[in-house]
C-alpha cells in the first residue's frame, strides 16, 4: 500500500474528484462502515436540499477518510435517480469545491491552480490555450468567448475568470461517469445503498409536497408580483446567472414587499457562483439601507422590463406599484 501524507489526504477529502483522491482511494483499502454509509447519505441530502455548504478546513485522518470515502458512495447513491436530481448533486458538489477553494483563503488562486494541474489543465500564469478554455468554458455571460481577452491562441484570464473555468472543469469531472451502472457497484455495499436510495426518495417526495404548499402560501400572501421581477425570480430558480443590477432589483423588491431576509437570500441559492456569505452581506446591506427597487425606466434601460407590462401599465413608475395598481384596478372594478 502506498503511503500518503495527511496533507494529501486532506486535499483529497476536500476535492474528492481529483486524480490525487482517486489514487488514494484505489490504492488504499478503506473499510466501508455503517458510519461512512450514513455520512454518504448525509452528503447527498445536503447536496439536494441544503443551501449551506460545509467547508472542510481542518480535521484528523479519520474525518478526512470519512469525507473522501463518502464521495464515491454518494455517486453510487445518486446514480439511482433521474438526470434532474443528478444534476442537482453535480451542481452542489461543484459549489462545495469552489467554496472549499475560496473560503477564508486569500491565496485561493494557488489552490485553484493546484486543482487545475490535477485535472490536467495546462496554464501559464492565468493564461490558457483557447482550446483548453473552450473545453471548460463557464456557461455564464461573463464566461463567453466573445468577451475574453484572446491573443495568439491564448485566453488571458483574471483570477475570477480562471476560477470560473476551474469550476466548470470540476463540474465536467464530477459529471463524467454518471450514472454508474448498477452492475459496477460492489455487491457488498449494494443492499445498503438501495436502502439509502429509498430513504432519500421518501425525503424528496415529502419536500415536493411541502414546496407546493409553500408556493401556494407565497402567492396568497404576496399577491400579484411584477412580471419583470417574476421573470428574474424564475431565472434565479432555474440556476441562471443574474447581473448585479438584477440581483439588487429583486432583493430590494422582495424586501420592500416584506419578505424576510432569509427568504430573499434563498432566492439566489440556485444561481451559479452562489456564495451564501456574500449574498447575505448584500441582502442585509440593502435591507439596512432600505433601498427602493429600481424604477421601471431603469429596469427598461437594463433590458429587464417586460414589454407587455409596460404597454398595459404605461403610468407605472416602479415595479413596486404593480401590485397596488392591480389591487386599485380591482377595487375600482368592484365599485362599478
Amino acid at each position, binding site marked *: 500500500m502506498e503511503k500518503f501524507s495527511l496533507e494529501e489526504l486532506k486535499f483529497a477529502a476536500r476535492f474528492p474528484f481529483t486524480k490525487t483522491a482517486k489514487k488514494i482511494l484505489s490504492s488504499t483499502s478503506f473499510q466501508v462502515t455503517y458510519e461512512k454509509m450514513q455520512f454518504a447519505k448525509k452528503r447527498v441530502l445536503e447536496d439536494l436540499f441544503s443551501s449551506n455548504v460545509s467547508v472542510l478546513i481542518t480535521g484528523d485522518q479519520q474525518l478526512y477518510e470519512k469525507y473522501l470515502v463518502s464521495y464515491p458512495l454518494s455517486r453510487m447513491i445518486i446514480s439511482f435517480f433521474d438526470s434532474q436530481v443528478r444534476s442537482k448533486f453535480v451542481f452542489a458538489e461543484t459549489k462545495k469545491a469552489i467554496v472549499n477553494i475560496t473560503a477564508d483563503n486569500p491565496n485561493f488562486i494557488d489552490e485553484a491552480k493546484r486543482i487545475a494541474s490535477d485535472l490536467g489543465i495546462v496554464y501559464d500564469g492565468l493564461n490558457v490555450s483557447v482550446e483548453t478554455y*473552450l473545453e471548460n468554458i463557464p456557461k455564464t455571460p461573463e464566461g463567453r468567448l466573445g468577451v475574453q481577452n484572446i491573443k495568439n491562441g491564448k485566453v488571458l484570464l483574471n483570477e475570477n475568470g480562471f476560477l470560473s473555468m476551474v469550476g466548470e472543469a470540476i463540474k465536467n469531472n464530477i459529471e463524467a461517469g454518471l450514472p454508474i451502472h448498477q452492475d459496477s457497484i460492489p455487491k457488498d455495499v449494494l443492499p445498503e445503498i438501495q436502502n439509502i436510495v429509498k430513504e432519500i426518495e421518501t425525503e424528496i417526495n415529502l419536500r415536493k409536497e411541502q414546496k407546493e404548499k409553500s408556493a401556494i402560501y407565497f402567492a396568497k400572501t404576496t399577491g400579484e408580483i411584477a412580471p419583470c421581477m417574476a421573470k428574474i425570480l424564475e431565472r434565479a430558480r432555474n440556476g441562471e446567472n443574474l447581473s448585479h443590477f438584477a440581483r439588487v432589483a429583486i432583493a430590494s423588491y422582495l424586501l420592500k414587499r416584506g419578505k424576510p431576509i432569509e427568504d430573499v437570500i434563498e432566492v439566489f441559492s440556485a444561481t451559479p457562483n452562489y456564495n451564501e456569505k456574500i449574498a447575505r452581506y448584500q441582502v442585509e446591506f440593502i435591507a439596512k439601507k432600505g433601498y427602493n427597487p429600481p424604477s421601471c425606466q431603469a429596469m427598461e434601460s437594463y433590458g429587464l422590463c417586460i414589454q407587455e407590462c409596460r404597454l398595459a401599465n404605461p403610468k407605472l413608475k416602479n415595479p413596486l406599484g404593480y401590485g397596488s395598481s392591480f389591487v386599485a384596478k380591482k377595487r375600482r372594478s368592484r365599485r362599478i
Partner: protein
Amino acid sequence: MDQEVKITEEAFITERFRKYYSSHWTKGPSQIHTREFGFGGWEKKIESRHYSFANEKELNAFLARNTPLFISYSEAHYNYPAARPIEKKEWISGDLVFDIDANELGMPCTEKHGKNWVCEKCMDRAKECALRVIDDFLVNDFGVPKEEIEVNFSGNRGYHIHVKTRFTSLKTYARKEIADYVNANGLDYDLFFVQDPMRKRTFGPKITDGGWKGRITQFLVKHIKERTLENIGFTKKIAQKFYLRFDAAEQIAAGNWEAVYVSDRRKFFSQLVDAIKKEQSGFVDEGVTFDTSKLIRMPDSLHGETGLLAQRIDIKRLDKYDWTKEPIVFSESPVKIYVKKANSFLLNGTSFGPYEDKTIELPEYAAIYLLCKKVAVLAENKDSLLETKE
C-alpha cells in the same frame, strides 16, 4: 412507327457525373472508415444517409456504380458510422467546420439575383469572409497554424473551412461559442464595461486588449481619427462630440470611454457592434459549426446544383482562387438547351446570358450549370416542358 426516346435532364447529368467518377479518383476525407456518408439525387441533396466505407477504394467504386449527384460526409468521427439511430453511432470526435454562403452575407446583389443565384460580387465577399475566418480568427486569435487548416470551394455558393487537428473534442456548447465569436454575436455592453462604484467610473475595453474587446476599440479609434463615424451609422451630432474632444481617440484607446459624453451608452455601443459586425465578422452558418452530427459536402466531389467541383484549395493561394474557372470539369463540347429564364453568369472567362425563353448552344459545362440549376432543359425536351406548363 417507333416512338423517339428522349433523355431526361436527370439522366443526362447523371451520365456526365458517372463518366467523371469513372475516370477520376476521388480523395475521401481523413479517417474515412469513421465517417458517415449521405447521398443526394435530382430531387434532394440528401436522399439517403448512414453509409460508411472502409477505405477510399470502396468509396470510389460506389461513386462510379451509383453516381449520386450530391456527396456529403460527417464532420464527426464515429465508432459505428453506419449505425442508426444517431446515438448508436458512438461519437468519438468532430472536425471544426465553417460554412460561408454567398447568399447569407446580406449583399445588395443577393436581393437582385435572388438567393439561388450568385455573382462575382457576392462570391468575392464570401472569399473575403473565408480569408477573415482563417487569418483573423483561426490563425491570429485561436493560434491555429495555417498548415492545419483545409479549405475548399463548396461547389456552389461559397467556401468550407475545416480544422481537423484541434478543437475536435469540443461539444455543442463550446462550438456554438466559436460560431458566435466568429459572427460577433452576444457582444453586450454589460460584458464589455466594468463599473467601479467607489470611483463612480466605468472602464471600457482598451486598444491593447485581445479578441473583440481590442477589435471594437481599434474600430472606434480608427473612425474617430479618420473622422468617418457618420459612415458607420452615427449621427452628425454624436460624431461631432468625438471630433471636438482633442484626445478622444487616445482616451478611448486607454479604456476611458467616458471621456466623451454620450447620453445613451448602451445604444451607442450596440450601434458600434452592428457596424463592426458588418465589416469584420465571419458570416458563418452557425448550424454547420455547432451541430456535431451535420453532414457536409465532400471536397473534390461534384455539386449537383452546378456541376462544379467542390474543389480543395491550397490555402496559400485562396485569395487568388478563381471559382469561375478552376472547379470546371466538363468539356467545351456544345450542348443545345432551352433556357426558361436565367440571370447572367461568368464561367471560364466567358460571360453568359441573361437568357429568357431561348434555345441556345452552350459549352457542356455552362449547359450543365443551367440544367443543374433547373432553369433550363435539353432542347429536345422543350416541347414536353411547354406541354407540362399548359
